């Protein structure tokens, strides 16, 4: 589903180059559940942005669903995001003036889907996250957990192949967080490829596979079940140690 070859991304920060990603190569199979971990500034959000076609690598190649997307125009990348990728953000990113149903409908509105189709899909997507009774509520009338469930419904309503979640439980209490994680698991079981960025070991433990980034490089790869604490996981790379 996803294949990265030697991906690098460098920012200019105050005139200094910052290597957010350095020579990252990775392969994620269709339907796989992968967690990306790492300390702050390790480049995990940059990696997620590259995976989501929001950001372009400076070097390397990225195949998504069999297609090299590094050479695509902005317009084509936009279409890739629309058709293949769903995003879930830590801060939900719901539009406050729109109701839950309208927020879920948004990607379909801009994709030009017929009104009747949209209606049906909104109802199905909100039912899938158990929010059928909250369709006409605005975000400020919903709890944090409910908001993230609306965002989850929005991210999947266009039927993406890949779901990218950036700290999806970061702003939630434990109960709401667990609900979201269970929903993500269920969607993954239904076939969607799931990539979750987190620094919470309990979130990473649910993944098939965990990639640990330190200073923009892949420091470790392990199975989700192997995740214990973060102290040893985030230790800097020893020179010459093969990742």
């Amino acid at each position, binding site marked *: 589903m996803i294949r990265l070859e030697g991906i690098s991304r460098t920012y200019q920060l105050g005139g200094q180059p910052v290597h957010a990603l350095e020579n990252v190569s990775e392969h994620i199979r269709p339907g796989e559940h992968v967690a990306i971990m790492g300390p702050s500034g390790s480049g995990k959000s940059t990696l997620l*942005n590259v995976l*989501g076609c*929001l*950001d372009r690598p400076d070097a390397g190649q990225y195949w998504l669903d069999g297609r090299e997307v590094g050479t695509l125009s*902005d*317009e084509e990348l*936009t*279409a*890739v*995001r*629309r*058709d293949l*990728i769903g*995003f879930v*953000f830590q801060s939900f*990113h719901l*539009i*406050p*003036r*729109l109701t839950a149903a*309208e927020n879920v409908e*948004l*990607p379909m*509105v*801009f*994709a*030009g*889907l*017929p009104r009747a189709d949209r209606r049906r899909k909104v109802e199905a997507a909100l039912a899938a996250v158990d929010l059928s009774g909250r369709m006409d509520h605005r975000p400020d009338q919903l709890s944090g957990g409910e908001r993230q469930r609306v965002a989850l419904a*929005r991210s999947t309503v*266009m039927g993406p192949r890949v779901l990218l979640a950036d700290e999806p439980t970061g702003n939630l209490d434990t109960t709401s967080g667990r609900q979201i994680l269970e929903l993500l698991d269920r969607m993954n079981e239904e076939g969607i490829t799931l990539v979750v960025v987190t620094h919470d070991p309990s979130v990473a433990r649910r993944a098939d596979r965990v990639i640990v980034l330190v200073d923009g490089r892949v420091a470790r790869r392990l199975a989700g079940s192997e995740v214990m604490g973060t102290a040893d996981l985030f230790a800097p790379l020893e020179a010459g140690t093969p990742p």
Partner: protein
Amino acid sequence: MSTAMTTADLFGFALRALSGHRLRTLLSLLGMAIGVAAVITLTALGEGARRYVVDQFANIGSNLLIVVPGKTETTGIPGVGAAANDLTLEDSRAIERGVPEAEKLAPFVIGTESVAHGGRRRQVAVVGSTRELLEVRKLALARGEFLPAEELRRGRPVVVLGVKVARELFPGEEPVGQVVRIGGWRMRVIGILAPKGVQLGADMDETAVVSVATGMRMFDRRSLFRIMIQVREGADLEAAKAKVVRLLAERHGEEDVTVLTQDSVVATFSQILGALTLALGAIAAISLSVAGIGIMNVMLVSVSERTREVGLLRALGVRRGQVLAVFLTESALLSAAGGLLGLAAGWGAVRILIRVFPALPASPPVWAVVAALVLSLGVGLFFGWLPARRAARLDPVAALAGR
């Protein structure tokens, strides 16, 4: 899969965004509305003035030639050029004999003199003319008779009074048959004009009409002020005009008179007042561009407030062009709604104008209404362009982070 967003959806999204900020939306609407209302009201005023003047001319008959001493451009305002030769009663008589198209001639002089009866005295405009003036200027009599038909050179001591003059000098009395003093002259009142009101800036109700010979002596003039010629029905006005000019040029040895057709006078006034209307409209249109800057300001604030929303839209697969369309639609809706509001307000203002000044046929010209609406929409799109482009060019990653 279709990738085109429908116009209805675009409008729906934009409307939701605008109604989310009611006060801000209302204020920028108001700016545009005031601009459009100003254009409509001011041009209505100018157009009203133009129509008023044109109507005044229409009052005095259409088949009229006016001979003015002095040479000016035919479309200019008469009486500005220096008169080389006098325009005399003999000239008038020569036209009567030599130009068959001239049906009726009313040579006239005009001046101000005091008219007195008993203890009452009043400054009025005194017109010296002939019997023909009655028909040429479409006057009517309330009582008595108009000036008698007589030799131009003679001039019996008789006067026809305007209705207001008569009423004030002879309150409760019958003026006809009585004697008034005009300057040092004793004149018998032989008739009263029917009320006519203001015509070409002169209130005929406040005039006294005497014979032309009397008038010239009274004001010690050798030259006439004007000769008004009523041209025979069906005759060629331009041909008659050319004949008059040629005849007077022969008599004077040079072309030193100006002959105006009523059309040219009307055209001149209409042109001047039309230009005035245009100028008023243009000044008011400046306020439209100020309103446009207001809209730009509102949209810039909106874009910077909604940076994260733009980032989200881009992440959801919304194209740059669609983001541009969203913000442009918002500013266009703002300005169009402001324009319509202004149209309604302008219409109301014109209604009030008509009520306050019933004589003024105030009505905005169609071009001004169309221009104001088109301009308001154009201003919205023009000033909305910069903010919309700024939104469309936002980097998705930075925008999502609110940067």
